[in-house]
Each structure stands twice: as structure tokens, then as C-alpha cells.
């Protein structure tokens, strides 16, 4: 039987040991009236060859197009080593490392991951991952509220150009605990420091700085951090991890550095894969570690003084603290962390910085190319690896034309940020070639030349 090793003979022997007459009898404590599960609509079993055939066809349906789409998920090169190692059975099929002595591989790896993420963010400690960037952001807000020295403070000030996905997820996750997000003033695609004076900061637990922000623009992180901390608020940095190799990390913002950093780990070796699994990272100063949600691995020694690793500070977690836990999270995104740790080990500080620089250079090139199309402008600078492009016409039909030609042209900003007009968010990672960027320019010009296109057929 598929995946079940029992022979008829063994089943008979086992039932005899149990003293039961049949497999069915083993369910005799279930009220008979309930024992009926027709599973209507579930197809019959199919062998692996048959299932493979279906999946191969579905994977191939609509070949993926050249990707200038970012908006929270980025098309980076993933070294072959990453997944050849991460899918080794000993990583892939292990549980959460509760039995430390039988899980030193996973535990040491997480310790290394924590070290890398703490280093990248410039903070002291990192947890072992959260579900994704959006939930990490929400957990960071909750954490800030718990850690805030202002009793009852439940307000979080956020940039207007916070990722819409982060905003939506935070709304769903924070509502129950009565947290509220308030937008900061903007100007030129980023938070307007000049207008901060007028912002009310009563009841504010934390101020969020997103660097780069959702539009790809670089925020005045130093000024914002100092401003927020001067007003007794904690600072949460929401960051792109690739950018952290190039840009000043949260731990170094302003005079004292941000208190918490969070973000989406996908750029670190995780495939786009239609949106997941990715992972969220979360780091903080050591003073806040007891408010941190999620697992943390610590170093220790065994009876003979040999160094080893174990889950630590479990008293924060749901299986110990129950209603008072720092979060309900249990299963996290361990395998993704495995991949990211391998990715970061391969890239190293020099490699990761080169990735960041190449993304930035390519996006500059893209912005320059696209702005050569008539009526197209790139309003906001400096940016990291995404930029807003304003079109002379509505975005959606242009994107549809580009997609038909095999180009994912970017993210239509008009629903989330109508104030930006016909605005499109484009991204060119290190993966985009000069030819692909040029081809996008040509395709955009053609797509904008709608009457000509219509005439052509």
C-alpha cells in the first residue's frame, strides 16, 4: 500500500496482539452515527508517474515571463548549492529541534542564522524566523507595544508608503488587541521630516521606518529614528535584507539605533514560488529579547563541557507560557532559514553587497531606459532597487500588453496609492540583463503607442 508498510500477515498479528477483530474495530469509540466520511470529490489515488505528468504540465502552463515585478518578492539568483543542501533529508524531514542532542545540526544552523541576521541588521539578537515579512512586521508591532514604557500605548506610526501587504496583514493580526496604525506625512515619495512637528505622538508605542519603503525610495532613517526616540517611542525598522549589505542597518540609524528590525527573508535564496513559503526575520536589542516572539537558539555546554546548542528562553513561548506567551507561533519557517543561512554563507559580505549594488545599478538603468519613452517620468530618487514610473495613461492595460509580450512590467500602484496617478512600480534585480532592460523599454514604448498598436492588429 502506498507509504504503508504493513503486510496482511503483519496486520493480522498486530490485531491479534491488540485483541481486535478488524481495523474497523479500532474506531469503536467513535459514535457510529458519526462514522461516515464519503470524501466526495476526492479523486482516486494515482501513481507517482501519473501525478508527475499532471504537475509537469501545470508547471509548464504559461512559461514564466521576464520579471520586472518586485513589490515584496524579488527574482534573485539562487546558487545551486542552496537547495541541494537544504532538501537533504536530515534537514527536510526533521521536526522542530526540541530534543537538542538529536538536533545539533538544525540548532547550530539556526544559531549561525541568528548571528548573521543580528549582524546584518546591526542589532543584538534575532529569532529563528516568523512566517513571512508581513507577519514579522505585525509581530514587531505587538512586541513594541509590549515593550513600550508607555502604559497603554497602542498606536504605531507608519510610513504612508508602507508595503500594502504589511499593512493589510497587520490590520488583520492587530485588530484583536486593539492596535492602530497611523500614517506619517509624505513628500516626494518618502516620509516628510519637515512635517513631523505636527504629528501627534501621544499613545504611540513605536514608529516604523521602512527602508527602502514600498516605492523603493530611501527614507531619512536617521532623522526619523532620532525624532521617534526623542518622543519616547520605540523604532521598528522594516528592511529588505539584500539592501542591508549596502545601506546603513537599523542598528546604526540615528544616535541610538532602531530597537527592532523586521522584514521579508525571501530575497536570501528563497524562490519566488508563487508567494511562499518565504520567512520573516525579526531582530532586536538585547534588552527586548524577552518580548521577542518565536524560537531562539542559544549556546551552552554538555556535562563534559563540550559546547552545543539548544532552544532557549522558551518561557516566552506558547507551550510554556500559554495565554501569556509573546505570540502563538509554534511551527515557523525552519527550512527557509536553512536555505537563507546557506545563501548568506555562500554570498558573504562581499557577494551580498555586490548583489545589492547590481540591483541598484540595474534599476537605475531601467529607470533611465523607461523614462526615455514619451510621457514617462521617474519622480522619486534616490531609490534602492525599485522605482516609481509615472505613465501618461492608465497602468493596467499597459501591463496587460506587456504581459502578453512576455514581460511582467511591474506593480500597478494606482489602487493602493491613487495620489500617485498612473504609477507603476518597477524592479530590476541583478538577474536582469542589459538586453532585457532594453527590451522592456522597447515594449513599453510600443504598448504606450496604443493607437499604432491597435492599427497594427
Amino acid at each position, binding site marked *: 500500500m502506498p*507509504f504503508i508498510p504493513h503486510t496482511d500477515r503483519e496486520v493480522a498479528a498486530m490485531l491479534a496482539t491488540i485483541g481486535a477483530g478488524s481495523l474497523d474495530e*479500532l474506531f469503536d469509540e467513535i459514535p457510529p452515527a458519526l462514522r461516515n*466520511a464519503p470524501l466526495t470529490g476526492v479523486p482516486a489515488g494515482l501513481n507517482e508517474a501519473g501525478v508527475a505528468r499532471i*504537475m509537469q504540465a501545470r508547471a509548464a502552463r504559461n512559461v514564466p515571463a521576464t520579471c520586472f515585478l518586485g513589490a515584496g518578492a524579488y527574482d534573485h539568483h539562487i546558487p545551486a548549492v542552496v537547495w541541494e543542501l537544504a532538501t537533504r*533529508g536530515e534537514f527536510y524531514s526533521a521536526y522542530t529541534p526540541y530534543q537538542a542532542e538529536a*538536533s545539533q545540526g538544525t540548532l547550530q544552523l539556526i544559531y549561525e542564522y541568528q548571528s548573521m541576521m543580528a549582524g546584518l541588521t546591526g542589532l543584538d539578537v534575532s529569532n529563528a524566523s516568523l512566517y513571512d515579512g508581513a507577519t514579522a512586521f505585525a509581530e514587531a508591532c505587538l512586541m513594541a507595544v509590549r515593550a513600550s514604557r508607555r502604559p497603554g500605548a497602542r498606536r504605531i506610526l507608519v510610513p504612508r508608503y508602507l508595503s500594502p501587504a504589511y499593512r493589510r496583514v497587520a490590520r488583520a493580526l492587530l485588530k484583536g488587541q486593539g492596535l492602530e496604525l497611523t500614517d506619517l506625512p509624505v513628500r516626494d515619495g518618502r516620509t516628510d521630516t519637515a512635517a513631523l512637528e505636527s504629528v501627534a505622538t501621544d499613545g504611540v508605542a513605536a514608529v516604523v521606518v521602512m527602508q527602502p519603503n514600498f516605492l523603493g525610495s530611501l527614507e531619512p532613517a536617521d532623522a526619523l529614528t532620532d525624532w521617534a526616540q526623542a518622543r519616547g517611542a520605540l523604532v521598528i525598522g522594516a528592511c529588505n535584507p539584500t539592501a542591508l549589505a549596502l545601506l546603513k542597518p537599523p542598528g546604526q540609524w540615528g544616535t541610538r539605533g532602531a530597537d527592532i528590525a523586521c522584514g521579508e527573508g525571501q530575497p536570501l535564496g528563497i524562490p519566488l514560488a508563487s508567494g511562499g513559503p518565504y520567512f520573516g526575520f525579526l531582530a532586536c536589542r538585547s534588552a527586548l529579547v524577552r518580548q521577542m516572539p518565536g524560537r531562539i537558539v542559544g549556546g551552552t555546554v554538555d556535562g563534559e563541557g563540550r559546547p552545543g546548542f539548544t532552544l532557549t528562553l522558551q518561557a516566552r513561548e506558547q507551550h510554556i507560557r500559554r495565554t501569556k506567551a509573546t505570540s502563538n507561533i509554534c511551527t515557523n519557517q525552519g527550512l527557509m532559514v536553512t536555505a537563507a543561512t546557506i545563501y548568506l554563507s555562500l554570498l558573504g559580505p562581499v557577494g551580498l553587497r555586490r548583489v545589492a549594488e547590481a540591483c541598484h545599478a540595474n534599476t537605475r538603468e531601467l529607470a533611465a531606459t523607461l523614462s526615455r519613452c514619451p510621457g514617462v517620468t521617474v519622480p522619486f530618487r*534616490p531609490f534602492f532597487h525599485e522605482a516609481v514610473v509615472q505613465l501618461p495613461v492608465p497602468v493596467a492595460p499597459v501591463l496587460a500588453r506587456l504581459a502578453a509580450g512576455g514581460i*511582467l512590467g511591474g506593480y500597478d500602484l494606482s489602487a493602493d496609492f491613487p495620489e500617485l496617478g498612473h504609477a507603476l512600480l518597477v524592479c530590476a534585480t541583478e538577474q536582469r540583463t542589459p538586453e532585457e532592460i532594453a527590451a522592456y523599454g522597447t515594449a513599453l514604448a510600443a504598448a504606450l503607442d496604443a493607437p499604432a498598436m491597435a492599427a497594427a492588429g
Partner: protein
Amino acid sequence: MREPLIFEQSRAGRGALLQAPTPVPPSPDLPASLLRSDVPPLPEVSELQVVRHFTRLSQQNFSIDTHFYPLGSCTMKYNPRACNRLAMLPGFLARHPLEPEAHAQGVLECLFELQEWLKAVTGMAGVSLTPMAGAQGEFAGVAMIDAYHRARGDHARRQIIVPDAAHGTNPATATMCGLDVVEIPTNAEGDVDLDALRAAVGPATAGIMLTNPSTLGVFERRITEIAAIVHEAGGLLYYDGANMNAILGQVLPGAMGFDVVHINLHKTFSTPHGGGGPGAGIVAVNQRLEPFLPVPMVGQRDGRYAWLTERERPQSIGRLSAFMGNTGILLRAWVYMRLLGAEGMRRVSAYAVLNANYLLARLRDAGFTVAYPGRRASHEFIISLKDVARDTGVTAMDFAKALLDRGVHAPTTYFPLLVPECLLIEPTETEAQDDLDRFVEALVEIRALARRDAAEVKRAPRTTPVGRLDDVRAAKQLDVTWQSRRAPAA
């Protein structure tokens, strides 16, 4: 041999630079004030060093692929490699989550079918695939219950009832949702104390969180009565489907009276646990809660598969992830379900329950104390080592460590909290009788050793890369990064 930290293998100027793009000149666009001035403390190692390091680390793990792993409540069964292989086809991996629907039909078709199959498996009316693990499924479930009451203007229902045996995520989830927890006791037979339940329900009751079979490894026989009590009080029933492996294809949570269910696909549907995740904690609901399901969901429109978002589902509790949860894990579950089919799913629970009851019988016959002796095991069961502990000082934890030396991963220890010195044992359906027998022998052998030489048992484990670790020190002398070792934080 200790595997040095990757940082210890690092040398400035070494690297695997084939993995990086060619360097570009510094950008005139970026002001120095925005740039990083220090070098982030990432390791500088060669590709071979990376391969060797992580290969060696992997070998220090116990895993399904190497060991019997009867970790109760975790359903550590075989993760078919076809699931991994097919979910990782290049054509799936290269897809951006925001690609146009017209491009994503292959993926959407899988997700749509998965929703349908999960409806059948739960006996529910609607499914959302987005929760990324059991705990997030719980969150979605409780949030929907809350939304339901609020939508009816019933703002007084701020209490969630939870049995004392419940998994920690249950009470923690209630808190995250802003609700209060009311704990009710379990009776000597492992069932919910119905009188206590009756006393607990009332106009403040938002709902109850239950798992059935419970974390005690027994089926809650009076589930229909429980449902009636809660429903009559105006509350709803939430089903923690982490233990679905016990009843898959035998009984539907919908038929038991539950209003909302989550299922850990990473348990019952055999997607891997990856050393801590990722998982998927899909939710299924009956008609009542259907409007509140988290988005995105997958529907059909004009003969094509399409995303259903806040626009189509205005009452939704909203989004729980940036995109569509752990899509890759959902594809793995799709493959697993398609391989098994309806009959294969029924076999899962039948043989999981057979293995558990066989192991229970053998351990009982060998003289171990079974926590609920009068009861059938579900897919898991509990033995208590309190007698042995009392007689020899050898605890459940000592047994756990001694099992490691015998090539078996330890069962869950000290959970559920109400049974002293307990081992929660879940063999799963994918283990062969021989391996179960070896496990019994190992426990018998450890018990004999405990009686003969307790100190020796307490010295376990000895064959693992490290011996028993000092947890207290780990929490007291916090060492959570390599940097902290080199320059201890102030």
C-alpha cells in the same frame, strides 16, 4: 568531532564569488549618509566549505529519513520525495506571486482543487488555504468566530473555552485575538468534564477550542453533546485539526458539530517539517462562517481560475500573509492527496491507529503504565513513567535521552501537562511492525537498566554529537550570536 561554526572557518578575502554578480561602479545616487560603513559579519568561506559544513551539520540531526521519530502530536511520518520534487519543478519556482492570473492557471488549478478536497475531508462548506501553520489557522478560526459574533452585533462574547489538556497554541491564540481564556478540566477517562463545560458556557462564550482525538490520545466520545451545549449557549466550536491523522476519512469534523477547523498539512498531509517549518494550517468552515474566511482564496471566473480577494469577500477577516501563504507547501499537499486518493486517505488513519494500538498493547503487556488504560488509542497514546521515576529516579526525560542512544527519536515528553512523567507516543502509519517492536525492546531495556543502574541511564545520551545540554545555563548566560561570544554585549 565538533563542527566549527561557519564563522570560525571564515577568512577575510575568501569567498564563493561565483555566486555574486560582477561588481559595478559605486552609484552617484546614494548619499554616504544612507550607506553602510562597516562590513556585515557574514562569513567569508569557499563553496566547498559551505557544502562540507552544512552537509556535516545535517548529519547531526535525527530525522524521519534516518530514524523512527514517534513524537506525539507531531505526526512525523514519511514525507514522500515526489511531493518535494514536483513542488520544486523549475516551472513552479520561477513564478512571481503577483503574476497575472492568466499566467498562473496551473498553480491556481492545484489550489482550487486542494480547497475542494479539503472541504470533503473536513465536511465543511468553505476553505481558505492561506494560514501558514497550525497556530495561524487557529488565529484565523478564532478571529472568524469573533467576527461572526460582532457581525451579529453580539459584542459580549469575549471568552474562549479551552480544555486543560489543550496544546499551548490554543490559549495563546485566544490571547492574540484579544479574547479571554476559560480553562475547563478533563475527567479521569480523558474526556472533557461536561459539568464543568456546562458551568463555563454563557452569554460571554465566544466559542470552544477542542481537538478530537484530544492531545491525550483518546477520542472525545460525547462530542455531539459538547457541540450541543456550546451551540445552545450561543458559542461556536473550533476544531484543532493537528490530530487529523487519527480520523482522516473516518469521521468528518463537520459532522461532529464543529463550525471551523484548521488542519496542519505538515502533519496529516505529510508535507515536511523542515526542522521547524514551514507548514500550512488551512482553515475550513461551515456556511455560518464562510463569509469571514481569510483571503486570498481561489475561485472560478469566466471559465478560468481566479483569486478571490477583499473585493469579492468584503466580510473576510483579511489577509494573514503577504501573498498566498505557503504555496509550495500547499502544492506538496496537493501531490500527497492526489497520490493517495480517497481510499489512501482512509488507510492513513486506519494504519496510524493500528500502529498506535499495537504499540499500546505491547507496552501495556510489557508492564508499562498506560495513562488511559480503558481507552482505545487514537493515532497516539500516553504512557506514564511515574512508577519507574519514583522507584529509580529515572524520569521520562531520562528515558527520552536513552532512546536517542538506541537510534530512536524520543516521544513527546511532559506534554500534555496533566499526566506526570508522560511520554506521548505517535508511531504514524508509515512505520513497520519491526520498528515498533524494536522501540518496545528499547523501552524495556532502558527500564531494566534503570532498575539496575539508574546513573547509567542518566548519563544518556552518549552516542549523539553532544551529551545532555545545560538548558539553565543557556537561558541564564544568553549566547545567541557568534558576535556576542567574541565581544559580550554590555
